[in-house]
């Protein structure tokens, strides 16, 4: 079975290169190319391709807007997003918009063909070469970083201890305890204890429920 492809990119040489790459593979046929969003949308409606290969940045707007639109109306359409940008935000934006694959422009043309092959088969799953690493980068906490001592003080604060009690428990002076607390508030962007604890839970610094005192 031959898969039909439509290319949307504003650079002629890129479209040419990709067209040749698809033509080298007997299981693909390129229906046409568009150099902007408007033209792309028209050709998609006209040719009804099985896979669309589209650049993120196009002269008349973001390619991802068109991806979102196409995904809404054509759940079975394979969509491969190409990009020259390096940031993770593009990758996640492509994922959110409903793309089937994400390929950076420094990858060989065969990678684009492989992505299109994947997209044609399972349009609703997402692949990208850097996906796992990007996920890791996203999951690692970048939020507030407390020193070990501040973590201890935070835990005691969460248990409901007052300044004096915290100072006694950690064998530090009350003023030192106060300094720790004000630093914790500062780092967590909180004005009081309740806010500090809420923000700390959100940032994953303490567990939601304190089981025992």
């Amino acid at each position, binding site marked *: 079975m031959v898969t039909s492809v439509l290319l949307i990119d504003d650079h002629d*040489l890129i479209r040419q290169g990709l067209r040749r790459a698809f033509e080298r593979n007997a299981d693909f046929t390129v229906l046409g190319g568009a150099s902007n969003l408007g033209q792309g949308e028209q050709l998609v409606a006209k040719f009804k391709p099985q896979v669309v290969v589209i650049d993120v*940045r196009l002269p008349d707007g973001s390619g991802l807007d068109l991806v979102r639109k196409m995904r809404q109306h054509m759940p079975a359409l394979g969509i491969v997003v190409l990009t*020259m940008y390096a940031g993770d935000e593009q990758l996640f934006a492509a994922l959110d918009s409903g793309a089937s694959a994400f390929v950076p422009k420094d990858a060989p043309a065969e990678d684009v063909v492989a992505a299109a092959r994947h997209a044609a088969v399972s349009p609703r799953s997402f692949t990208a070469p850097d996906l796992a690493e990007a996920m890791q980068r996203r999951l690692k906490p970048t939020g507030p*970083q407390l020193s070990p001592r501040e973590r201890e003080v935070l835990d005691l604060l969460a248990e409901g201890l007052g300044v004096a009690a915290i100072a006694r428990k950690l064998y530090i002076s009350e003023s030192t305890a106060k300094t720790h607390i004000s*630093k914790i508030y500062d*780092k*967590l*962007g909180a004005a009081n204890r309740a806010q500090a604890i809420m923000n700390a839970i959100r940032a994953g610094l303490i567990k939601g429920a304190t089981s025992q005192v």
Partner: protein
Amino acid sequence: MMAAPREAMIATGARVFGAGTVLLLALVDASARSAITAAAICGLAAAMSALTLRLHDLLVPLAVLEALIGGVIIGIAMDDFASALAYCLVPPFVTGLGGRWGARASAIVVQFLCIDLLTLAELRGDAVQERLELSVPWLLTSAGAALLAHWLVEAPVLASRDDTGYESARRLLTQLRTVSRRLSAGLDPVGIAQQILTEIDLRANVSLAVLLARADSGTLQPLAELGDGAARDLTADDPLVMDAWTNEAPVQRPSGAPGSTSYIRLAVPLQVGVRVIGVAVVETDRTLTGPELRELREALAEHCLRLDTAMLFDEVRSLATAEERRRLAREIHDGIAQEIASLGYLVDGLTADAEGRLKDDLAHLRQELTRLTSELRLSIFDLRTEVSPTASLGAVLSDHVRLIGSRSGMTVHLSLAEGTKRLPSQTETEILRIAQEAVINARKHSGARNLHVSLSVEAPYARLVVTDDGRGLGVAREDSFGMRTMRERAERIGAVLRVRNKTTGSSGTEVILVLEDRRRNPRVATRNALDHLA
């Protein structure tokens, strides 16, 4: 020249004044002749004003006519009521508002011919001389009145012409260009902020002081502090600060912490004209009196203007730089990067058809093109990375460092300690750029496997350490372009930068940037110390 209504208004004002003066002098004189003359002049003034206001295009001809009639009236009355001469200033003044120099001269000449010819007709030699003595000074004065009116209309401040605003803006910008070229470190808002705190310290003997200035996000952020941890203890959350800000007046209240000696907390709004640009918050041991506060604010006024200018200048410069970086990123993205990428696709095609040795060479070429495109993608990413009111230095730096790390095979160890208080956005930007440069150097030149980046920010201070375990600095690197730019950036925010090979244990480079109180860590002294180390 067409007379605008505004000139007609001024003319009316001059006439009312002239007629009023004559009327007053007539009251003092209290004779029948003077009363008649004054009445005639008032009538003339009223008639001319009414006509001018209605037909303001005819301002100049009417004024010449007025000179003629007025000259006759004054000439007739002159022997008994010489004070009427006062009105002879009015017609030349009015022609001065709108006429050409010919019209002005004719108004003056016509008027005095009328005044003096009336006596010449009587041919009394002594009377003529007397008249001339009386009228010649007025002749000169009315010429002065015409000049005055001319200046009033043409003066740049009063003339309502659009290009005058541009003219003064241009002059200011030229000055700014000259000044900014002379100062490599810009106008240095932090230095000025510290001067302001020192100024307050001289008068109020403060133990803690912090200067809060308005940031891009609209919140007040510390720009400079005096005393350890002042910016931590004296924050914008204190209602005192809001009070001083909204009421535009200093506010002070005792603030005795339990168990410690009581002190006074004072918030002084920093104003330029009617605008508040920040608040200085200090802790002092006594209440300042009203006169002392007034004196303090007067002393601060000049500093405030300088601070405002410096912050504005920084903002303008960083806006321009940011825009330029974005433009450059777009240009690389839409241009050279796409072309090289398409070359890559072309080589892919050739590789597919090639065989043997050629295939290997083409594969190698493809690798190079991929590497080049990746470099360009990272350059675009680098150029597009920027701090914003919602993305703090720490957040942006961590995203950046992690991505670069994962693209380069280095393991990135990141440690961030960042409070809620932000540094001024220009300072954040400079630190970010220094960190980016350090990371790029590590990635490109060091061959390092581990990259440690640690950033701690406690506004207004910050500390950045970037170390790697690569092969260390090359010989020529010290004054390379990247290195020089880093130094300039550090200097611009008043920070101390040290770039050197690690001194302990393993090989590698360390880049340390310290932004702290300049008096505690005088730049010159530190510089010398660093030179010894280098």
